């Protein structure tokens, strides 16, 4: 019989340790007693889960594998020591090795009491539902006056005490045998068949078919055709796989998708019930592979890339194109990072293509404003480009004066707009604008990035040129398939097809830095195993820190306030990991105080694509009083500040025609959101106003004014000068919106070759960065559609230079 003994204290000298040592020796013929110490167990903290640390895993694995447990507790302040309580809390939090485990209590103390009160507390603690140990009743072994109990060899001196301990121990051996019978899993016999159940998805219930044979769960089919691609996919593959592999409903939920994870598990539970079996029996079974110890892993490759979003996968694809081997490590179960959530098309000036489209009202006005700018107001490094652009614009405007005007664009217009869009001053009066050399690279290579993506397999819809929110100009290249996912799908397919490796649930903990050169990473895998990857170079492509409110607040110098409970449009994975990794090898940071809010986010979730999200020429924004309050074409931070000034919450108004221009939605989704109360619909404007608690007269007047401005092509109130549709056809819609964190412009300082630069201005050898993890390009405000251009451009540059310089 195999027992685990736990010394219930972290004290250097302990009579309880002595007692367990004695038992180990004295009962060696009957049982194998292995003694575990609690000294190195961290203090339990539910906010800092360390279940995967080696020490907790050791306790979990050894207790799980043992036939029973013997706990020796001292008494501190009439109860058990905090050190012992902490271990029990860890072992009843996310793992439960004590569940049903035969357990014996012993205790020693200096007083007569012999830990009597501590043992009673311990019994009650072990009886708590999260612990649920099978504690042997009676047979209390209390060793009082313990300082007199042992001889110099650590043997108990008193024969009566030894006899009683022997009685208790032999009882416990019998108790263990009998008690463990209860732990034999219940016999299960399903009524065989295929059962139709449902599981909740993001966009409504999904049909699920569960096939059960007499003894097994054979098959789980989920119809995901209605689901958002990307994030949820992993849930619908992995959860069923783990259920079938382990023949268990005891399955870990997937981070970032807990609702859908539980949905699948509950759906299968429902089918199990329909087949005549109590699903609790399956929930009590061990997890798939729970008992296997996972060995550490070690790999060697050419380039290791941190983060499997758009920048990381681009770097991986580029590495493969140059004949080298990448490994991409991603801390989340799903790939795609923030890119998979991107809704906007990517910016690239392609004048020949854009020329085919007619200009829309107001665009010439935007260009005239640029022409009218004082060149002295342009920073010196941009001034030559600005003057050249002014010539281009004057020529264009002279030739395009009527309704036959075409849509103008040029690399220079793109560059100057990126620069102007990013120029900001923070609360401390610090001015920032995009670093010229980086902005030049971005705008010069943008179109090349579009073409490169086409080679990789992204298909663009060339029939339309669009403008994402906050983009200032129509130069968006929109993928034919659903926007953000289209990039990730094509890139990951390319990487996999060409032999690149993507390791998910691999959380990088440190960079390997040898002789001032970064040459690999150390990470923690899904099962807590250590993963070491040696490489010639490391590319950080782990995104910004939009989902790390603490870090946002720490660096913020731009917003007057960032709420503790601010929502974000970002993936919860985007917590600034790459920035911290860079700093660990001395990287310099730039522009960290500047973060971008997405003014048009879901007030509850921070998501972009709920409700009716339309192009800005069709935006009609009204505040909670039913009045417009801003030029809807304003940059993101103008819109955000205006929203904050109007109480945060505001509404996007749409009619039936405007509805048709919404991104990423369907009638079914719309109906569902109306039913859920997250989107408002009414046959009349007055009715809509009433639903929103506005004065109908005010709201109707607002819309009447807006429609008139749209006819006239100019809005005298707020200066909106580009219009498309009016609000006129019932039913009418109102989508509630509120600013949420969207992008962090600051990050690691890089040069034009995507090298990470240290605090003394030197290149950190072997370390490259691409995408939102790097700073310097977007400065104080990033134009909509530029993040995609950034990741695909600098992702390629980082991989190219990593390989070229490794060869040197």
């Amino acid at each position, binding site marked *: 019989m195999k027992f685990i003994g736990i010394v219930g204290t*972290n*004290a*250097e000298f302990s009579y309880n340790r002595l007692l367990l040592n004695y038992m180990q020796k004295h009962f060696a013929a009957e049982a194998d007693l292995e003694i575990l110490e609690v*000294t190195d167990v*961290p*203090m*339990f*903290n*539910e*906010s800092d889960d360390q279940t995967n640390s080696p020490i907790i895993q050791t306790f979990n694995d050894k207790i799980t594998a043992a036939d029973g447990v013997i706990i020796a507790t001292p008494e*501190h*302040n*009439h*109860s*058990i*020591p*905090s*050190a012992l*309580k*902490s271990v*029990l*809390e860890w072992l*009843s939090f996310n793992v439960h090795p004590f569940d049903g485990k035969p357990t014996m209590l012993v205790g020693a*103390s*200096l*007083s007569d009491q012999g830990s009597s*009160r501590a043992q009673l*507390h311990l019994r*009650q*603690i*072990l*009886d*708590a539902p*999260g*612990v649920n140990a099978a504690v042997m009743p009676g047979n209390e072994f209390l060793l009082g*006056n313990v*300082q007199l109990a042992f001889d110099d060899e650590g043997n108990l001196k008193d024969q009566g005490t030894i006899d009683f301990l022997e009685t208790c121990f032999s009882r416990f051996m019998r108790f263990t045998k009998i008690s463990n019978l209860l732990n034999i899993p219940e016999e299960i016999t399903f009524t065989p068949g295929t059962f139709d159940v449902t599981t909740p998805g993001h966009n409504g219930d999904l049909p699920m078919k569960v096939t059960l044979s007499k003894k097994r769960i054979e098959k789980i089919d989920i119809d995901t055709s209605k689901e958002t691609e990307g994030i949820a996919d992993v849930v619908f593959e992995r959860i069923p796989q783990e259920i079938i592999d382990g023949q268990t409903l005891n399955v870990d939920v997937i981070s970032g998708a807990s609702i859908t994870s539980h949905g699948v598990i509950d759906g299968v539970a429902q089918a199990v019930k329909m087949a005549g079996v109590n699903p609790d029996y399956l929930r009590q079974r061990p997890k798939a592979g729970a008992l296997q110890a996972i060995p550490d892993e070690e790999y060697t490759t050419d380039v290791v890339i941190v983060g499997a979003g758009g920048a990381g996968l681009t770097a991986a694809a580029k590495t493969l194109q140059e004949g080298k081997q990448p490994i991409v490590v991603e801390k989340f179960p799903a790939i795609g990072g923030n890119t998979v959530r991107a809704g906007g098309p990517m910016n690239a000036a392609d004048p020949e293509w854009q020329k085919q489209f007619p200009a829309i009202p107001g665009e010439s006005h935007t260009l005239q404003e640029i022409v009218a700018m004082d060149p002295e107001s342009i920073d010196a490094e941009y001034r030559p480009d600005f003057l050249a652009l002014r010539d281009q614009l004057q020529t264009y405007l002279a030739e395009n004066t009527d309704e036959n005007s075409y849509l103008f664009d040029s690399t220079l217009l793109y560059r100057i707009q990126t620069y102007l869009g990013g120029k900001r001053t923070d609360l401390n009066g610090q001015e920032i604008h995009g670093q010229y050399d980086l902005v030049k690279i971005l705008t010069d290579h943008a179109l090349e990035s579009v073409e490169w993506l086409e080679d990789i397999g992204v298909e663009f819809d060339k029939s339309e040129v669009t403008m994402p929110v906050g983009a200032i100009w129509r130069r968006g290249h929109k993928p034919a398939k659903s926007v953000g996912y289209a990039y990730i799908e094509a890139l990951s397919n390319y990487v996999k097809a060409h032999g690149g490796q993507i390791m998910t649930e691999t959380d990088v903990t440190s960079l390997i830095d040898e002789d001032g050169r970064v040459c690999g990473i150390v990470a923690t895998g899904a099962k807590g195993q250590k993963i070491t990857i040696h490489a010639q170079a490391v590319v950080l492509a782990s995104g910004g820190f939009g989902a790390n409110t603490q870090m946002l607040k720490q660096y913020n110098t731009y917003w007057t306030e960032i709420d503790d409970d601010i929502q974000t449009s970002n993936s919860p994975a985007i917590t600034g990991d790459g920035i911290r990794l860079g700093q660990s090898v001395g990287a310099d940071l730039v522009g960290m105080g500047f973060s971008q809010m997405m003014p048009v986010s879901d007030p509850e979730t921070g998501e972009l694509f709920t409700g009716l999200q339309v192009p800005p020429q069709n935006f009609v924004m009204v505040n909670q009083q039913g009045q417009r309050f801003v030029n809807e074409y304003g940059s993101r931070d103008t819109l955000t500040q205006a929203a904050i000034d109007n109480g945060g919450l505001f509404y996007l108004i749409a009619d039936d025609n405007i509805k048709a221009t919404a991104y990423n939605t369907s009638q079914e989704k719309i109906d569902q959101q109306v039913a859920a109360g997250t989107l408002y619909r009414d046959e009349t404007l007055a009715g809509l106003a009433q639903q929103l608690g506005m004065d109908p007269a005010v709201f109707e007047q607002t819309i009447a004014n807006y429609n008139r401005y749209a006819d006239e092509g100019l809005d005298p109130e707020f200066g909106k000068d580009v219009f498309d549709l009016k609000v006129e056809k019932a039913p009418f819609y109102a989508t509630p919106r509120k600013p949420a964190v969207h992008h962090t412009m600051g990050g690691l300082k890089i040069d034009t070759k995507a090298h990470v630069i240290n605090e003394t201005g030197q290149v950190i050898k072997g370390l490259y960065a691409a995408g939102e993890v790097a700073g310097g390009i977007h400065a104080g405000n990033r134009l909509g559609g530029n993040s995609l251009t950034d990741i695909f451009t600098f992702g390629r540059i980082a991989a190219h230079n990593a390989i070229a310089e490794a060869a040197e």
Partner: protein
Amino acid sequence: MKLIGIVGTNSDHSTNRQLLQYMQQYFSKEAEIEVCEIKDLPAFNEPADKVAPATVQELSNKISAADGVIISTPEYDHSIPAVLKSAIEWLSYTTRPLIDKPVMIVGASHGSLGTSRAQGHLRQILDAPELKARLMPSAEFLLGHSLTAFDDNGQLVFPEKVQELEECFEEFRDFVTINNELVKNHQAKAELNRQFSWELDANGGQN
């Protein structure tokens, strides 16, 4: 009246912290309640030099200077959290500021039981010879369903609980006054308790 409120957990999100913050502002006219955290105290481990860490001593001094203490405890596994137990072990190890100190126990839990069992344990613990706190008898404040108990402004939304807390707190203020009168005349015994040690006790010492 100056009181110390101890948040009995190291969790980032705690309704017990909310409860103390609520009491702090709700009773601000009757008493000054300073809310103290224990999350940054090291885990108890008897130091070789027998000197408590500075953060522990700081908390200990605050308690000594206060008229009374309110402990708000969650319930983990039918008992108090290890981190609260650890803080108490430190207090019993240092200058023992809880000896004869009036203590009120409150607790909030997500479920319906409101930390009843943790409070029971805490009472027994605080009665240990190294602690000997003066617990307010026959009064317990259990706040169940604590996740729905507070609104966005941190106000307790259950009216019957507000009333119960008011009565409890009023009684506690009286208890503090009476108790501090009572113990004035027992300083010699208190000093003896401060000297208590199980080692001495076991060796036939003066306890």
